[in-house]
């Protein structure tokens, strides 16, 4: 069985974000980077599947500058067999369609039985890449899965819907799945595996070899939402505080009409 898992490196979401000079993306400098959270679930699921089936070969793919290799090493340490780094310093400028086309061009003649991706990236959040890869390759996709099982070529996945409803979906390989929070608890890579990951294959492919389409959308502007007025802190003696509060509740709300 051949499995592919696609992962993206995103900034730590606790970073202090600044806008870039063009005003259409965040400034990439001085950020701490990590694996997109949803992609961790994808890697974990792919590794679990690999251990479940007897013969499996698990490739991890990432598009981006050299620094993404650090995160790919983590995926290799978690249990992926080989890495394909699609080297692209400008990946952040590409739209979901271009990214999906690059992945599809890589996967096209490799006959992957299963492809796992995150359900969305934490920094762009389009949620499009997985489904577009599946469409381009002409295979079914199941999105936002929270449970996964594979037996005798049959895939059974649970999707989480609004209102606490879940849906059970069945399909057969080849297929693509996008992974949601709750699917699993990603393992910590063990130290011996971190050391062994050094010796695993990590191919670098120039993006130009796979990037053949033009973008279909562009981010015109990125901006911070306007600051809403902050909270109100009342000061003074207790009795006076109560009076102030009652006045505000009367004037500004319907609670004490």
């Amino acid at each position, binding site marked *: 069985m051949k499995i592919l898992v696609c992962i993206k490196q995103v900034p730590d979401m606790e970073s202090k974000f600044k806008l870039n000079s063009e005003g259409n993306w965040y400034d990439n400098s001085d950020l701490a980077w990590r694996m997109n959270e949803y992609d961790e679930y994808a890697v974990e699921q792919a590794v679990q599947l690999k251990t479940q089936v007897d013969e499996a070969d698990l490739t991890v793919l990432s598009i981006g500058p050299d620094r993404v290799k650090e995160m790919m090493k983590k995926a290799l340490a978690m249990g992926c067999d080989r890495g394909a780094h699609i080297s692209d310093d400008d990946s952040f400028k590409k739209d979901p369609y271009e990214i999906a086309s690059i992945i599809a061009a890589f996967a096209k003649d490799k006959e992957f039985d299963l492809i796992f991706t995150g359900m969305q990236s934490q920094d762009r959040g389009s949620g499009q890449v997985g489904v577009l890869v599946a469409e381009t390759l002409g295979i079914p996709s199941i999105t936002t899965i929270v449970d996964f099982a594979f037996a005798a070529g049959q895939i059974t996945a649970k999707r989480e819907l609004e209102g606490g409803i879940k849906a059970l979906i069945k399909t057969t390989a080849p297929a693509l799945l996008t992974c949601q929070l709750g699917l699993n608890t990603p393992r910590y890579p*063990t*130290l011996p595996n971190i*050391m062994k990951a050094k010796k695993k294959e990590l191919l670098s492919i120039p993006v130009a070899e796979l990037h053949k389409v033009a973008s279909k959308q562009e981010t015109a502007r990125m901006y911070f939402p306007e600051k809403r007025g902050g909270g109100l802190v009342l000061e003074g003696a207790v009795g006076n505080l109560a009076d102030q509060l009652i006045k505000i509740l009367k004037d500004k709300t319907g609670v004490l009409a």
Partner: protein
Amino acid sequence: MNFQLTEEQKLIRDTVRAFAENELADGSKERDEQERFDRVLMFDKLGELGLTGIIFPEEFGGAGADYLSYAIAVEELSRVCASTGVTLSAHLSLGANPIYLFGSEKQKQNYLTPLAEGSKMGAFGLTEPSAGSDAGGTRTFALRDGDEWVLNGTKIFTTNGGEAEIYIIFARSDKHAEKHHGISAFIVEKETPGFTFGKKEEKMGIRASLTRELVFENCRIPINNLLGPEGSGFKIAMKTLDGGRIGIASQALGIAQGAFDAAISYAKERKQFDQPIAGFQAVQFMLADMATQIEAARLLVYQAAYRASAGLSYSKEAAMAKLFASETAMQVTTKAVQVFGGYGYTRDYPVERMMRDAKITELYEGTSEIQRVVIGSMICR
């Protein structure tokens, strides 16, 4: 020296940090209050991650990583739980490393492998009531009787004592020799008849770490459990402590970093006189000094670790790192309490615990005075 961590070192740091923050941080306050050692969390899980054998080769169940990775791991654990930091350091540097450095092939297979894999825990018994800074005062005796050594005596202050399965014990094997002569090192297993545990220390800090008395009463161990040549115990102890000091220096560094992280985020949030206290120059200067001391300590610790992995001499550098990092930990945690004001003195915030934890790093594996003796004797020779 290269100041960039390798990809592996960064990945190890991130992994241990994630583990420490997700699994260890929440319970450190409670474990401290209850003086509770949690074997699963503070040791077994470290084994699953491969931390218990981090510097040993794969053939002995280790991870095959370098000393710097080890230093980083102890630092990250100690940043949230100093008791876990010392549990690992005592196990690895003091319990397992002497077997790696001085053990026979057979001893490595029998004892180093389970220690490295984390299925067994290690400890080191050198200190006695009469032998503190002066290991030459050792009064535990080992008498040869046929195929066995018979141990009699008492070890105190043994980290991991009671829980550990494998102990490196120093005893005088030549009763006519004096001071640091005629001492040998032995590997003693828990459950050996004649080996029992005495007083469990109640401590100021690192309260979740075990510190216990070991009692040997006609405890018979096979001659094969002599570690290294007979009479070389003092040398083994000193060489072991060189490595141990890198572990304790890393523990101190982690404690200091943890206190600094807490102080800076508090200083940005706490408002007095209508502004965050981080806006006051007096507070900023404290934070600036703390950050600078920590950075200097880190460079010393990393340098010692780098030298150890590169096969260079590192006794002096390890002593310097341990001396400076431990004094940094004490100063930084004290300032962190100051930044927190009265709140810092309460158990609602972690900095008072960190201040209590920091003190031990100036004491064990050689007090600060003894580090100065080591450094002084090396630079004045």
